[in-house]
């Protein structure tokens, strides 16, 4: 159904809020836009209460603009900064309990497969480093072990931003944060390698400095999950508040991290690789025919 429920019932166009009418008329439902057209179409999320200069806010904007089928997508989040923005989008969002995202997504995805065996319904977890790698670690890992068919995107700001700046497992070693008054004693968790070892079929690490590449990575992660198994994106989305990054230096910081420990990395199973080659060749052919 998907599109049916977003479409405005005939005769009601004049009475629906303008934002909603614009979303249906000029938005992403049932259409595919290029990320470089950002700004020319009505976006799924336009308002958010994130801090000025928040890189995570930018990431989530690109994330929504990259959804291959927003009318058939459900986003799942947990406590943390991300959900403040995720919950404002025109895509169904589930906010459960602390760190439960990947368990909720497992149940939801299976339920949707039972009820709609012939449809693609994309389930995407967007949660922070604390939610996925600390409190929800077991559920994250086990959803991968079970090869659940949904995408997990970790927006890693290396800190518990929303609760006031406490150390997380993803904070770099040595950083002094609340609850680590003498500095963090152990290394940043290697989430990408864990995801590979646990059975993800598509794994990427990215500092969102290049929107085109980011959009492609997000689309790939969602499509691969639809057909093959769990997928994971580890995205660097700095916290300019807790890490005292001046607003105008946020992008520069990301570029620096990209040069050091956040170089773009993409890994996929042979099966997924073959699938994308096929899809992308078909796309090219279609464009050439045009």
């Amino acid at each position: 159904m998907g599109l049916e429920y977003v479409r405005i019932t005939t005769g009601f166009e004049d009475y629906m809020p303008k934002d909603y009418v614009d979303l249906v008329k000029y938005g992403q439902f049932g259409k595919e836009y290029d990320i470089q057209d950002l700004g020319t179409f009505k976006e799924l999320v336009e308002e958010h209460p994130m801090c000025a200069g928040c890189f995570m806010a930018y990431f989530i904007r690109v994330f929504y603009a990259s959804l291959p089928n927003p009318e058939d997508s459900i986003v799942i989040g947990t406590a943390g900064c991300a959900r403040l923005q995720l919950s404002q989008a025109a895509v169904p969002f589930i906010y459960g309990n602390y760190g439960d995202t990947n368990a909720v997504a497992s149940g939801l995805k299976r339920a949707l497969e039972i009820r709609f065996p012939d449809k693609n319904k994309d389930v995407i977890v967007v949660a922070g480093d604390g939610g996925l790698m600390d409190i929800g670690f077991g559920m994250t890992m086990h959803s991968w072990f079970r090869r659940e068919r949904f995408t997990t995107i970790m927006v890693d700001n290396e800190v518990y931003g929303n609760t006031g700046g406490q150390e997380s497992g993803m904070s770099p070693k040595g950083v002094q944060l609340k609850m680590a008054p003498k500095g963090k004693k152990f290394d940043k968790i290697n989430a990408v390698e864990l995801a590979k070892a646990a059975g993800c079929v598509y794994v990427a690490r990215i500092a969102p400095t290049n929107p085109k590449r980011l959009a492609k990575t997000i689309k790939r992660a969602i499509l691969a999950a639809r057909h093959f198994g769990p997928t994971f994106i580890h995205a660097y989305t700095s916290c300019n508040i807790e890490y005292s990054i001046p607003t105008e230096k946020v992008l520069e910081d990301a570029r620096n991290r990209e040069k050091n420990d956040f170089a773009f990395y993409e890994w996929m199973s042979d099966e997924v690789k073959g699938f994308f080659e096929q899809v992308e060749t078909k796309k090219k052919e279609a464009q050439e025919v045009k």
Partner: protein
Amino acid sequence: MPEQKVVDTDYLLLEAPRERKFITGAQAMAEAIKRANVDMAIAYPITPQSEVMHLVGDLWAQGYLKDYYRAEEEYGAFSAISGAARGGVRVFTATSGPGLLRGLEAIASWPGHRIPAVLGVLTRVVNAPLSIQPDNIEISYLLNCGAVVLHAENQQDTFDFTLAAFAIAEQVDVYVPVAVATEGFFVTHAKGYVNMTPEDMKLPPRNPYKAPVPPTDNEIPPARIQRDAPVQKSNFMSYLIHAVWQQEVWASTTRAMKYIYKYLGGPIEVVNPDAEVFIVASGCAAAQSREAVRYAQLEGLNVGLVKVKAIRPFPEKEIRKVLKNAKGIVVPEHNIVGWLAREVKAAIPNNDRVVGGPRVYGGMTLPTELIMDEVYKILGVKKERKVLV
């Protein structure tokens, strides 16, 4: 998988023919699941619950359920249950003592998320020290979650309550989870007679659109509450939204009472309503109390029983009425805190009539003789029991 035909809920629960079988409590719960048209079950092992979820797994293997898996641990299992319920399918899981506590955060959020799941609670000691025996203290933690809580006395109750639980949970004016508790081992691993509806009949499937909060399935606009966490509004909005939402949740739980009357014949069962002394008990303690009433009869004592089937919503009105003229009230329990005695004391006037006990804990049986000792005390009967201990 044997062919099953969908029949009307009221017909299946109230009128369908029944056949008598001699089975364990675990089997009784699984037999109810077989007839409940459950889509999906999620399991995590813990003694004594595991028997139930093994049998439900077999039902999935036979084709009665569409999906089933062994989860990572209880919090993961119960969170996945809430995800699946939001996806619109009918779900079931079961646990025991420590498992219930491990997953309690998820369970406590089910009513607020309007998850009409059915949860089996096969009671067990909560550590420490470690024991696997049936002590039902975990039920006390469940009482403040907003869920409907039923307490089964025996294998028959376990079958009836579990099947009815789905019908109650999915009523539009209820739509909160229903927990069906019964004692581990004493009921789960022991056999009793169960009159069961035909194997080839099942409940109608869940209709997720007949709901106060719709499913999240991209087929219908989602509920606003699921999108906007109240905390990101002003403090006042946050307070207000939470307050009205929880009021509605608890009102929904209360509204379950009319379906408890319809499907389970009411929240209490009374034996000998004109008794001088009443025993008020739930679960296995009610079974022991039934024996005590029999003993009393043989001894010419006027003793009655109030078996409490529904712990939430708690039948305050009904209990107050029955106990109006009781000289004394004995509340035997399988736990140290006496959660049922607290409920009874809070419900009736002159509550110094309530004897909170006997209580056994750690999972031992509750000897009828101990209940009788309290009855004798109230009635001023001097009794010497000649038994070697």
